């Protein structure tokens, strides 16, 4: 697994530092970090499913939405306790992952991306039409039980969740499994030619991605306290997840995390100066430039900078 002591030291420092954060920053900043945490979870799960295997999904909100809606409906409409609702939501999302996996058996590349986009649009329309008494139709649902009160608790919960997911995914992806999944993204035929069942590997990636997405979606909706189809199954939401993973760096765990924090803070810090739509203009523009200039993401920029610095120091 190639784990060194400094890896754990860095993780411990990161987690420790973050947990100490509420002592030093305002609750407004904590709120921003909460959104960054959830975005990081979504970006990590997208990366497991798409970033590594190369099966680019444009329908990730489809999975997150299944998780979010399941737990929202169970808790709000049927008064089921969160302890049961969230695991059920995660299971349902994994079923959703299975549904996404089926086309992946036959098609890849652009076609797969389009199918997933169609899945997202489909569920967007269905949620509003089918059983609006359960889903709340176009207007969605409000008053969903929240797990935490206040920025500080919300921060601890979301950060613990994010850190647990990130650390376990990081560990998982450092094993040979991670190597094999990334290998699928680089050349699926060669993985098969190496005697590995890519179907099984992809299934694993899709289920794991769905698991994380469902977990994130469920906790997210219990943080927000409300849900609406227009906010979830939306190209803009997809865009945010995708851009976070991309500009952070694909096929890594740290990258999507970094990307999520970068984007959320960029957006939030622009708010006082540019209150309206121009924020999105700038945000999208930066994302596009970064993606064009460095498709491997910020993480790659950092490590390249680090290498250069090392060279300069050693010479």
């Amino acid at each position: 697994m190639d784990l060194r002591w400094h890896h754990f030291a860095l993780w411990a420092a990161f987690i420790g530092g973050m947990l100490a954060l509420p002592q030093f920053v305002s609750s407004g900043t904590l709120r921003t970090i909460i959104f960054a945490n959830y975005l990081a979870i979504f970006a990590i799960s997208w990366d497991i499913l798409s970033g590594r295997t190369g099966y680019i999904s444009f329908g990730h909100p489809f999975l997150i939405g299944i998780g979010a809606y399941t737990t929202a409906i169970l808790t709000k409409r049927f008064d089921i306790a969160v302890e049961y609702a969230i695991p059920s939501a995660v299971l349902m999302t994994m079923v959703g992952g299975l549904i996404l996996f089926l086309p992946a058996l036959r098609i890849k590349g652009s076609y797969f991306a389009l199918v997933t986009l169609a899945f997202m649009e489909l569920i967007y329309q269905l949620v509003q039409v089918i059983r609006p008494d359960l889903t709340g139709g176009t207007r969605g649902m409000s008053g969903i039980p929240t797990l935490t009160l206040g920025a500080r608790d919300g921060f601890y919960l979301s950060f613990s969740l994010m850190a647990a997911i990130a650390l376990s995914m990081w560990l998982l992806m450092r094993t040979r499994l991670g190597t094999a999944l990334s290998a699928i993204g680089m050349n699926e035929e060669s993985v098969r030619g190496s005697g590995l069942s890519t179907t099984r590997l992809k299934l694993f990636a899709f289920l794991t991605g769905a698991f994380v997405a469902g977990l994130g979606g469920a906790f997210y909706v219990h943080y927000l306290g409300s849900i609406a189809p227009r906010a979830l199954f939306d190209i803009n939401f997809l865009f945010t997840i995708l851009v976070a993973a991309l500009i952070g760096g694909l096929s890594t765990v740290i990258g999507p995390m970094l990307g999520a924090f970068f984007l959320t803070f960029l957006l939030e810090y622009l708010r006082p100066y540019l209150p309206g739509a121009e924020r999105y203009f700038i945000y999208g523009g930066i994302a596009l430039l970064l993606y064009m200039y460095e498709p491997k993401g910020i993480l790659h920029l950092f490590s390249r900078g680090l290498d250069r610095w090392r060279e300069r120091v050693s010479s």
Partner: protein
Amino acid sequence: MNHPLEITNLVKKFGGLTATDNLSFVVEKGKSVGLIGPNGAGKTTIFAQVMGEHRQTSGSIKVYGKEITKLSTSARVRHGVSRTYQIPRPFGNMNILENIRVGLMPDNIWQMITGNPDLDREEELALSVGFTPGDLMKTPSELSMGDLRKLEMARTMATDPSIMLLDEVFAGLTVSEIVQIADLIQKMRKDGMTFLIVSHDLKALEPMVDSAIAINYGAMIAHGTLDEVLANEDVRASYLGGTG
């Protein structure tokens, strides 16, 4: 008597085109067989059918007596057939050791997670195909065509094959690289590996093979030693005819 590879009445049709025409042959254990024929004769299609990348229209393919035509590509590899490609297909963002690691992995997700990579075996394989210890961290973009072929040989060997299918192993190589690859194949032959080799470079192929099979339009037109095959009138005609 079970042979490493036994092909019987293999037929492959693409629409109206017959790519493999009732082909039957056997590769015996420890032998190296050359598969020759003009461009478009259907050599690569045969490889693809053996590996399960294309499904045959009819016929049988056996590996050590075991019918493999119903198996997936990865299952066939685990049964001991492996191939290399005319254009190498490495994992672009991985270094040499990681590329080989994929070949060495067990096809079991739990073992992939719990087991550690066998770094010694990875290095051994890399060195055995002629890489130097300084090369091991290089990624495919830093390698020459010859190095990529070596890498592909190493990854293929990592799957522990009993027969290797080599597709145009000498294409695009410099003279010195051809010598390196040839030496490698000779060494593996001495170690008892069975080969089925496709090459355009008949001169380079000659010392590599015990016998040869010539095909055209997907059908076998001659077999025997390479000299015998090349002396065959039909084979000469097929090459001169340029059936491209």
